[in-house]
């Protein structure tokens, strides 16, 4: 029961901190909102409502919306779990490390708290669905929330993995440019990958976010078929989450 208690405590603390910091909640929603309204409207007005996807055609705004959800979860998730670096720098990590709880439970706690925060941010973004021409049924929402959480878990797993290697926040900008931005663009969040060059298509297959965005699209865009079957997406995400979790936990336990 000790590890479970530790996971719960870390989760509770991170949530308390997150919801106390209103500026951060608003701040992390700013860029997805800009994407939906400016890029969605701007690009949408040239591409129009007949973007060819999987034999059918959809409005660009609608096509992009699940991608923006994926982006929200990616950035919020990695950012939330990289807070381990802050905790280390400000000393609180040491308080947790000397407590009578196993150190892997700290990593797991961070992954789950980050995933909760990231999927919460994703849920807020769902309020913008009408502006993107996506109509959500209660069933869709019931499917979306656990899917968002699963996608978030793989992203926060990545975040904890990165944080175990990162000694200071100065390195974070590099992670942002070299890992998160490519992950976001190659995932097919912003454009269909059907006609993409072969190298991009190959890279997209090892990008966990590809499956996340595809699963979200599968739920929300009922008119057009998605790239992979929904079960394939979810299977791959679970597999990747577990793998990421295992690597992150072992890296984290070793560095301490």
């Amino acid at each position, binding site marked *: 029961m*000790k590890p479970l*208690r*530790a996971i719960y*405590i870390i989760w*509770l*603390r991170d949530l*308390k*901190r997150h919801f*106390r*910091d209103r500026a951060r909640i608003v701040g992390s929603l700013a860029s997805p909102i800009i994407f939906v309204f400016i890029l969605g409207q701007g690009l949408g007005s040239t591409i129009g409502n007949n973007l060819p996807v999987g034999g059918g055609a959809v409005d660009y705004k609608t096509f992009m919306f699940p991608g923006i959800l994926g982006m929200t979860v990616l950035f919020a998730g990695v950012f939330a779990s990289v*807070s381990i670096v*802050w905790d280390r720098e*400000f*000393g*609180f*990590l*040491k*308080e*947790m*490390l*000397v*407590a*009578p*709880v196993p150190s892997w439970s700290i990593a797991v706690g961070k992954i789950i708290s980050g995933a909760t925060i990231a999927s919460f941010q994703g849920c807020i973004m769902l309020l913008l669905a009408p502006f993107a021409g996506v109509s959500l049924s209660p069933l869709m929402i019931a499917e979306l929330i656990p899917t968002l959480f699963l996608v978030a878990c793989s992203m926060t797993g990545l975040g904890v993995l990165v944080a175990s290697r990162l000694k200071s926040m100065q390195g974070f900008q590099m992670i942002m440019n070299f890992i998160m931005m490519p992950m976001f663009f190659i995932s097919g969040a912003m454009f269909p990958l059907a006609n993409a060059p072969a190298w991009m298509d190959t890279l997209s297959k090892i990008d966990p976010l590809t499956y996340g965005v595809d699963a979200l699209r599968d739920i929300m865009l009922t008119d057009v078929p998605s790239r992979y079957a929904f079960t394939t997406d979810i299977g791959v995400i679970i597999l990747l989450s577990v793998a990421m979790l295992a690597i992150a936990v072992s890296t984290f336990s070793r560095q301490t």
Partner: protein
Amino acid sequence: MSTQETALGDNTSDAAVADKDKPHIGAPVIEVDHLTRNFNGFTAVDNISFSVGRKEIFGFLGPNGAGKTTTINMLCTLLKPTSGRATLNGFDVATQQDAVRQSIGIVFQDPTLDDQLTARENLEFHAMLYNVPPGEREARANRVLGMVGLTERARDLVATFSGGMKRRLEIARGLMHYPHVLFLDEPTLGLDPQTRSAIWQHVHELRAEYEITVFLTTHYMEEAENCDRIAIIDNGEIVALDTPGTLKHGVGGDIITLRSADAATTVKELKDKFDLAGIVKPAAADTSGPAGDRIYLEVPNGRTLLPQILKSLTTEILSVAVREPTLDDVFLSLTGKQIRDESVDKMDALKTRIRRRRSMGGHR
């Protein structure tokens, strides 16, 4: 007393009082047996053995880099010993990590509070991590907050606290789970003298109230006088271990400090005219600087010897002082160097700066 330098004189008499009404010290709670720790060929802690009794205030005294923090980290199960064994409250620090951790409270050199939470929240999280029954958490938090004088600030974010308040809160937090041993790693580093003495008052109070063992490290000699026993550690080895009084007694009588216009000639003269060959010690930092003209004498009876010395010397003497030995002298006579050299001071200044920067940084 009249010839003594007053500040130091006060200190020694305080220590004598503390020695007298020292509470009964119980059976060993920490037992260290030939403990060694290497880092890539460098031996930070070299084959040390000692034990600490229940309710004892035990000090680890030595310069920075002597192995104090490494020893604490091993006793707190953060570092595995390279060889040797240590038990704490009967549990082996290498194999029974959780039991040891449950038995100890730790205040590290650098703050480990969450400054985006309130004082009370920090205590609550700690209580949860250490499995304090939910029904007792609030009462314990009130008790420890009252003890360190932070009751009024319990609902404030730690980010708004001063350095001294943070340290007091950390001490309070370390007591939340009623540990058997409280580790304080340089508890007063970077604090002003007033806060420093307040912290010491808390340490004495909590020993009386919680019947707790306190294990602390310091490189402030004046502070080590507060301990029941002191281990002097240098280059990873314990060079002496005893009560402050006995250690000072071991130096042998009084310390005469002379400042001479020509130190070398004076030393020679002293050696010729008095039978002091073995105990004339030029100051440790003899090579350069203002300390270069200082000569230390350890003599059995300074007050009667001094007039004779002054009468017989032909070289010009700039100033003289006679005092009872301090722990500084103990360290000097045991290791041949002074505990606080310039590099230590610089290190302190740096640490204080970092702390200040940290305590100001609200940018997370």
